[in-house]
C-alpha cells in the first residue's frame, strides 16, 4: 500500500477544488486599472498584397486610442523559430521573416494586419469596421505538392516554398534502397495525416503592462512555458533584457501544444502597453483561435515496409510532405523531423530505416506541435503499414508484430534511427492488452454483431514515443536553439512546510498534486505541507516548461535533485544537533535518527534550527534551507504500449461505433495512478477525435471550411467508450531518479491507428476486401464511400 499522499497513491487532485468551484485565476481574469482592449483585424484572404491601410476614420471614433499597423513595429524583430533543420544538401532551412503585423503582404486567412486599441472591446470592434484595407488578392497555394512544384510563392524573398528537404538517416539511404530490392514482399501505403485544431477549453489571452518609472514590462499570457516566452520575446523580438521583463502564465485551461509557442499577440500587447503607457489586453474569440492558434499534424506520406520470406521486417522507407503553413511557428521545423523520423523504428527490430521529409510553406495557418507532435504521425503510418502487410501476407497482425518486436533481453537497444531505448517489454504489454480486451472472445462477439447486420472489427496498435525531452547537448547538435533541462527551487520554511518553485507548468496535468506527493514521500512529511508554485518568471528559476510529456521525468527530476540537496544539508544539521556522525543519520517518516541509538529529531526541529541558528555549525555551513537544482536528462524516456479498439460498422450508413478501447501502457513508475489514467483517457479522446471526427480543411483559395464547431467535429462524451486502461507492465526508466517515463501524450499517439485498423478489419470481415485504407477521419461518409466507391 502506498503512503497516503505519497508515491503510488491515487491522491485526489488538489487543484480541482479551485477549478471546479470557479476559483481558478486565468489570464482573462486579470484586469488592470486603466486597461485598454485590443482587437486584431485579420486577413480574410489567404494571399494578397496590401495596397493601403487607412486608419484615420477609425482613429476618430469614440474610445479609440490608437490603430496600429506594421509601421508602428519597425525596428521590432520577427517572431523567431526555436529550431533549425538542415537539408540533405547541408543547407540550413529557409527561414522567412514572421512579422508581428503583416508587412506588405498577407499570407493566410487570419494573418494580423492591424490592431485597434480602445477603451472598450466594443469600441475597438466598431472602429475595426472603419479601418479601410485595400488588398490585391493573389492566387493562394494550399496543396503541398503543388507548392513545391512551382506554385505561387508564399514568401517571395526566399524564392521557394520548400522550407527544407531532410533525409534521415541519410547515410543509410542506399542500404535501405538495396534492402527493398532484395525484399520478398513490399507493402506500400499512401496516406494523409489530417490537420487538427487544438481547441483547448480556454482560448489564448495576453495582457501587457508597463511601468514607466522602472522600465519594467509584465506580460500575462496563456502559456505552457513562460520562461521560454520571456527569452524569445525579450531577446529576439522586443529587445527587453530579462530583468525588465516578467512573464506570468497563471492558471491555463489546456494547451495540448498550442500554447508552447511565442505568438505575435504577446509581443503586440507588450509593446503597445509601453507605447501607450497603459495596460493592453487581448482575448481571443473561438473563431479567432481557429485561424490564429498553431495547428497540428498535416502530413502527406508514402510509407513502405520491406519483409523477407520469413516475414521479418528488413527495411522501412518513408517519404513525407509536412505542412508548415504560412510562417514557421516556434518549434515547427523539429516536429516532422526529429520528433518523427527518430520514432520510425517503433517497437520493432527493423534494421534499416530511411525518412525523407519535405517541409512546405502554404497559404494556411502555421502548423506546430500538437499532443504527441511527430510521434502520432510516425506511429500511425507504421502501425497502418504493418496491418496492411499482415493482410497482404495473410498472417495475423498480432503475430506479425510479435515476431518483429525488440526482445526484452535486447535493452538497452540501439535503433537504426539514432535513439537508444533504455527499457521496455513489448510482449508484456501486448499480452496484457489481449487479455484485458478478451481477444479470445472476439470471434463470438463478431458473430453476434453479424447476426444484427453489423460488421465488427478489432484493431491493434503498438506504439513507442520519445518523451522527457531532452538532453541539451544532443538537441543542440540537432538544431535546437534552446536547452531542454528543467529547474526547481525547493524552499523549506522555518516551521517545516515547503514551497517548490518549478519551471514546469501545469495546464491540466495536476502537478500541484503529483509533485507534492514526491516530496512527501522523500521527506516523510504530509503532502499538505508542500505547495507547488509555477508559472511566474519572477519567482522561479529559468525553466523550459511543459510539453513532450516531460514534466515529471525532467521537472520532477530537478525537484528530486534539489530535495536531495535539502536532505543532505538537513542531515548535517541533525548530526550537529544530536552530536553524531553525519553518516549515521537516517531520515524516515519525517524523523531524523542516529543509527543504533534512540536519539531522534523531528523534521521541524531541523528546519527551525536552519532558520534560528542558535545552536548551529555556522563556521562550516550557511543557515537557511533552500536549494535549487537544474536537471538535464541523459536520454529521452520511452513510454510504450499496446492499444486495442473494437468497433462496429453499420454497412448501410458507414457509421463507426467504438464499442471498447483498451490501453496497456508502460510508463515506468507511476506516482499517481488516478492522474495517469486521466491523462490516458484525455489522450485517447483526442486520438479518437483525430481518427473519427476532427478535420481542419482549407479550400483551394485557402479559406477555412471547418471554421467553427459547426463543421469542426470535436469528440463529445458519447463519441468515446468507457476505456479500460492499465499501466502495470512497468519497466522503469533507468536514467532518471524516479524511474518515470511520461504519460501525457501516449493516448493521442497510440489510438488513431488502432481505430483505423479496427475499421479496416471490420470491412474485411464483412467482405469489403477491396478497401485497403481510409484516411482519417473515418467519418460515416468516407467509410460508406470506401465500401461502395
Amino acid at each position, binding site marked *: 500500500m502506498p503512503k497516503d499522499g505519497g508515491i503510488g497513491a491515487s491522491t485526489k487532485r488538489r487543484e480541482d477544488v479551485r477549478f471546479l468551484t470557479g476559483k481558478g485565476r486565468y489570464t482573462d481574469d486579470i484586469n488592470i486599472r486603466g486597461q485598454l482592449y485590443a482587437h486584431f483585424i485579420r486577413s480574410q484572404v489567404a494571399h494578397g498584397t496590401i495596397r493601403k491601410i487607412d486608419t484615420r476614420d477609425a482613429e476618430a471614433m469614440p474610445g479609440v486610442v490608437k490603430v496600429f499597423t506594421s509601421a508602428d513595429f519597425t525596428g521590432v524583430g520577427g517572431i523567431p523559430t526555436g529550431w533549425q533543420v538542415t537539408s540533405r544538401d547541408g543547407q540550413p532551412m529557409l527561414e522567412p521573416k514572421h512579422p508581428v503585423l503583416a508587412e506588405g503582404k498577407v499570407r493566410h486567412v487570419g494573418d494580423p494586419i492591424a490592431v485597434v486599441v480602445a477603451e472598450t472591446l466594443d469600441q475597438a470592434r466598431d472602429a475595426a*469596421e472603419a479601418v479601410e484595407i485595400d488588398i490585391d488578392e493573389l492566387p493562394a497555394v494550399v496543396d503541398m505538392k503543388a507548392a513545391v512544384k512551382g506554385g505561387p510563392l508564399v514568401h517571395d524573398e526566399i524564392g521557394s516554398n520548400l522550407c527544407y528537404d531532410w533525409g534521415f538517416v541519410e547515410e543509410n539511404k542506399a542500404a535501405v534502397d538495396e534492402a527493398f530490392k532484395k525484399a520478398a514482399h513490399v507493402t506500400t501505403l499512401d496516406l494523409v495525416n489530417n490537420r487538427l485544431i487544438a481547441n483547448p477549453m480556454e482560448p489564448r489571452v495576453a495582457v501587457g503592462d508597463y511601468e514607466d518609472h522602472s522600465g519594467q514590462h509584465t506580460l500575462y499570457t496563456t502559456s505552457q512555458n513562460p520562461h521560454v516566452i520571456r527569452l524569445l520575446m525579450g531577446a529576439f523580438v522586443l529587445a527587453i533584457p530579462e530583468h525588465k521583463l516578467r512573464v506570468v502564465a497563471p492558471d491555463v485551461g489546456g494547451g495540448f501544444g498550442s500554447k508552447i509557442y511565442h505568438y505575435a499577440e504577446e509581443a503586440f500587447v507588450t509593446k503597445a502597453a509601453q507605447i501607450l503607457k497603459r495596460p493592453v489586453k487581448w482575448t481571443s474569440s473561438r473563431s479567432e483561435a481557429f485561424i490564429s492558434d498553431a495547428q497540428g499534424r498535416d502530413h502527406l506520406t508514402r510509407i513502405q515496409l520491406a519483409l523477407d520470406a520469413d516475414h521479418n521486417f528488413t527495411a522501412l522507407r518513408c517519404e513525407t510532405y509536412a505542412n508548415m503553413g504560412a510562417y514557421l511557428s516556434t518549434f515547427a521545423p523539429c516536429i516532422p523531423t526529429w520528433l518523427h523520423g527518430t520514432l520510425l523504428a517503433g517497437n520493432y527490430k527493423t534494421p534499416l530505416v530511411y525518412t525523407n521529409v519535405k517541409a512546405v510553406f502554404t497559404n494556411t495557418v502555421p502548423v506546430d506541435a500538437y499532443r504527441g507532435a511527430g510521434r502520432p504521425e510516425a506511429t500511425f503510418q507504421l502501425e497502418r503499414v504493418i496491418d496492411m502487410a499482415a493482410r497482404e501476407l495473410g498472417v495475423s497482425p498480432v503475430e506479425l508484430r510479435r515476431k518483429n518486436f525488440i526482445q526484452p533481453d535486447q535493452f538497452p537497444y540501439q535503433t537504426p534511427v539514432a535513439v537508444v531505448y533504455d527499457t521496455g517489454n513489448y510482449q508484456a504489454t501486448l499480452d496484457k492488452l489481449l487479455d484485458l480486451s478478451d481477444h479470445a472472445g472476439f470471434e463470438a462477439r463478431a458473430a453476434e454483431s453479424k447476426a444484427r447486420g453489423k460488421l465488427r472489427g478489432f484493431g491493434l496498435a503498438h506504439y513507442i514515443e520519445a518523451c522527457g525531452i531532452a538532453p541539451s547537448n544532443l538537441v543542440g547538435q540537432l538544431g535546437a536553439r534552446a536547452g531542454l533541462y528543467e529547474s526547481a527551487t525547493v524552499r523549506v520554511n522555518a516551521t517545516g512546510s515547503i514551497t517548490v518553485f518549478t519551471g514546469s507548468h501545469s495546464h491540466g496535468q495536476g502537478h500541484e498534486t503529483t509533485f507534492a506527493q514526491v516530496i512527501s514521500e522523500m521527506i516523510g512529511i504530509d503532502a499538505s505541507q508542500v505547495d507547488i508554485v509555477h508559472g511566474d518568471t519572477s519567482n522561479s528559476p529559468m525553466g523550459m516548461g511543459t510539453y513532450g510529456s516531460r514534466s515529471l521525468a525532467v521537472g520532477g527530476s530537478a525537484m528530486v535533485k534539489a530535495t536531495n540537496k535539502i536532505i543532505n544539508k538537513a542531515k548535517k544539521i541533525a548530526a550537529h544537533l544530536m552530536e553524531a556522525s553525519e553518516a549515521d543519520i537516517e531520515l524516515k517518516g519525517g524523523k531524523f535518527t542516529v543509527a543504533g541509538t534512540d536519539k531522534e529529531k523531528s523534521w521541524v526541529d531541523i528546519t527551525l534550527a536552519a532558520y534560528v541558528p542558535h545552536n548551529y555549525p555556522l563556521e562550516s555551513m550557511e543557515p537557511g534551507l533552500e536549494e535549487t537544482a537544474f536537471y538535464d536528462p541523459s536520454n529521452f524516456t520511452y513510454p510504450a504500449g499496446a492499444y486495442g479498439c473494437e468497433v462496429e460498422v453499420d454497412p448501410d450508413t458507414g457509421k463507426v461505433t467504438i464499442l471498447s478501447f483498451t490501453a496497456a501502457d508502460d510508463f515506468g513508475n507511476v506516482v499517481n495512478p488516478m492522474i495517469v489514467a486521466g491523462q490516458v483517457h484525455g489522450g485517447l479522446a483526442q486520438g479518437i477525435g483525430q481518427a473519427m*471526427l476532427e478535420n481542419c*480543411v482549407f479550400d483551394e483559395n485557402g479559406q477555412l471550411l*471547418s471554421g467553427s464547431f*459547426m463543421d469542426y*467535429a470535436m469528440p463529445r462524451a458519447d463519441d468515446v467508450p468507457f476505456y479500460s486502461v492499465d499501466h502495470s507492465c512497468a519497466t522503469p526508466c533507468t536514467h532518471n531518479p524516479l524511474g518515470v517515463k511520461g504519460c501525457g501524450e501516449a493516448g493521442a499517439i497510440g489510438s488513431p491507428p488502432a481505430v483505423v485498423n479496427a475499421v479496416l478489419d471490420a470491412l474485411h470481415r464483412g467482405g469489403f476486401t477491396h478497401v485497403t485504407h481510409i484516411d482519417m477521419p473515418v467519418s*460515416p461518409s468516407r467509410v*460508406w464511400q470506401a465500401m461502395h466507391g
Partner: protein
Amino acid sequence: MHNFDFVKPSTIAEAVAALSHEGAQALSGGQTLIPTMKQRLAAPATLVSLTGIAEMQGVCLGDGGLHIGAATPHATVAREAKAHYPALAKLAGGIGDPAVRNKGTVGGSLANNDPAACYPSAVLASGATIVTNTRTIAADDYFQGMFTTALHDGEIITSVVFPIPEKAAYVKFDQPASRFALTGVFVAKYAGGVRVAVTGASQDGVFRWHEAEAALSANFSPAAVSGLAMESRHMIADLHGTPAYRANLVKVLTSRAVAAAG
C-alpha cells in the same frame, strides 16, 4: 455585437406594430439570431421578443390537430406533445442540447428554414398549417428553398397546426460536428396516404419524396422503398458527405423511419 433596443410586447398586435419600424427584427429563442449578431453578421436596430406573448405559447389539441404556439421551446414540445404526437415530440427532444431546447422555438426554426433543421421535415410530412398574424399557409407552399420561406417582411408565425397521423417516425442522422441533420427523414401515415419529407439532403431545402410516398401508401413496409432510386443530382456536397452519400441516407433513413413507425 452592435448595440440594439429591446422590446418585449405581450400581444401579437403590439409585436406587429413594433416590427413595422425600420430595422426591427423578431427574436424568439435567439439560438440562431444571437450568434449571428455576435459575429456581427446581423445588426438589427430593435429586437422584438416574441416570448412574452401568451397566445404564442403552449401545446394543445384543437381543430385540425395539435396546435403549437410558435414561441414554444423545443423542450416543451418534447414533453407536452408526447401523448398526442410522439414522433413530433421525439424530434423536438433530439434538437441540439438542453440549453438549445429550452430556448429555441418551433417558430424560430420554421422562420429560419435552415436546410439541415429538423422541424421543417415534420411540418412538411404532416401537411401542417403555418398560422401567421395575417393568414394561414399550407406546408407545401411555405418552404421555398434554403433559408427561404413564404413569410413577408414583418409577418409573424403565431402557431403551427399539425394533423395527427396514424403512424409516424423521424429518423435523424447526425452531422458529426453540429449534430444538425446530415440527413433526416420524417414519415407520416394518414388515412389519405403516406407523406415523406427529407431534410438536410437537398440544395433546395426540405422536400417531399413523392415516389416513396406512393410506394409506402401502397405498402407501408421498410422493404417498399428498397427498389426506389434516389437521385443525387440536387443533393448537398460538403465536408460531411457527398451527394451520393446523402442520396443513400435518404433511402436508408426512410426505410428505418417506416420500421420505427411500426
